[in-house]
């Protein structure tokens, strides 16, 4: 049969695409021949139904394709078997009870095509054929579930490898001072994306092999700086994170309005946020105090009408170093 083309009335826009889960993606990426059971048990049209029952019982299957000269001619499922048993006709040949118009899928079809057939037809298994119509396997819903689970497992391994590679990033690069610089442009009043930069930085640090505590401290500091840019600046600002094996330097800078009294701004509980912003739960006056708690060093330079530059640093001792892998940490010797 010809595979059903994807529904034409549903336009995949960015909004829809965002909501597609990894499992759904995989249903399109994986091919039927990657998840099917190859060389399945097959029956011949002449096989006696009594032997079919015996074979199902031994192989613990509930259906099998009927093949003649390499061509698929039918299928016997539980339903056919029950039909035969009701007639007390176990000495009949398979060809008498098999279902003849068999739904099939091609090995090269995406798994989603098979899923569509399973949903619309309620069959339990689909014979898989090649371009010449020869049987190459059989597909059940269980095969698809197993295939998807294996693929998801592979995804996790890929993330592990990615993490491993990133955690050795600096090892093979020779320079007097190697660093990785991440830049994020923050728009004013963009509460929708508030926290995106800090989440991305946290993820990057974890991939680079930072300890969860370091990633958390850095995430909190960057989050507060990010929200300050969103809440207070006129035209937004930039967050720049420089990652070196032994330190993380963060800068958040903007071009206005500037802080009139930095010392007062640092005081826990002091805030200039508007009522509207406070209703969203911001403006507790804790942002800069939180940053001070999370970083080893912070400096604020601010000129009214010119802008503000907030510099933060987190030092990493030998055990916490990022991007150099565990072996180099050992080489350096942990005191």
């Amino acid at each position, binding site marked *: 049969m010809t595979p059903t083309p994807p529904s034409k009335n549903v336009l995949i826009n960015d909004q829809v695409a*965002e*909501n597609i889960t990894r499992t759904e993606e995989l249903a399109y990426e994986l091919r039927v021949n990657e998840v099917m059971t190859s060389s399945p048990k097959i029956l011949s049209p002449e096989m006696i139904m009594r032997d079919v029952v015996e074979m199902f019982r031994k192989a613990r299957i509930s259906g099998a394709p009927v093949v003649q000269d390499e061509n698929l001619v039918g299928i016997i499922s539980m339903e056919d078997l029950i039909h035969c048993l009701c007639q007390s006709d176990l000495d009949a040949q398979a060809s008498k009870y098999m279902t003849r118009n068999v739904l099939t899928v091609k090995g090269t079809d995406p798994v989603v095509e098979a899923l569509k057939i399973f949903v619309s037809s309620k069959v339990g298994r689909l014979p898989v054929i090649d371009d010449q119509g020869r049987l190459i396997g059989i597909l059940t819903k269980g095969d698809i579930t197993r295939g998807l689970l294996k693929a998801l497992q592979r995804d996790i391994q890929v993330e592990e490898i990615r993490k491993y590679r990133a955690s050795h990033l600096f090892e093979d690069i020779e320079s007097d001072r190697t660093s990785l610089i991440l830049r994020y442009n923050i728009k004013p009043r963009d*509460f*929708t994306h*508030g*926290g*995106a930069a*800090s*989440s991305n930085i*946290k993820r990057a640090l974890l991939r680079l092999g930072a300890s*969860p505590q370091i990633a*958390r401290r850095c*995430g*909190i500091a960057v*989050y*507060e700086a990010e*929200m300050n840019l969103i809440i207070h600046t006129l035209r937004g600002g930039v967050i720049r994170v420089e990652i070196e094996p032994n330190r993380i330097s963060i800068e958040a800078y903007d071009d206005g309005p500037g802080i009139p009294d930095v010392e007062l701004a640092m005081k826990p509980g002091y805030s200039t946020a508007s009522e509207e912003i406070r209703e*969203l*739960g*911001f*403006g*507790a*006056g*804790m*942002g800069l*105090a*939180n940053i001070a*708690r999370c970083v080893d060093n912070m400096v604020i330079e601010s000129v009214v009408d010119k802008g503000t530059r907030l510099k933060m640093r987190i030092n990493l001792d030998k055990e916490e170093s990022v991007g150099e892998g565990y072996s180099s940490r050992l080489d350096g010797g942990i005191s």
Partner: protein
Amino acid sequence: MNLAQIVDQLHLTLLTEPRDLTELQPSGGYTSDLLSCVMSGAKQRSLWVTLQAHGNIVAVAALLDLCAVIITEGAQPEPATIEKANQEGIILLSTNEPSFAVVGKLWEIGLRSC
């Protein structure tokens, strides 16, 4: 005490996609509607009780590795917030009760560290 028992005893509604809540053990609890206070006060894997329902609670919960967020007084997050929570693996729970009652019940059933 695991999260499934808490959801059951406090009659909370799970807003994010279903997952096995029995394997999650909150380390403690924290309540505030001021995000910076949460940033400074909430411990890893703790439960956060708040009536804030906008998208930024997900960012806060993700950055702090919180166990789950209980949104009180029936405040309803936008679908985009729930979707973001699903992506970040954050559990959002909802109740019509006010924060005070929720915290009281959590204390009563034994979640007392903060």
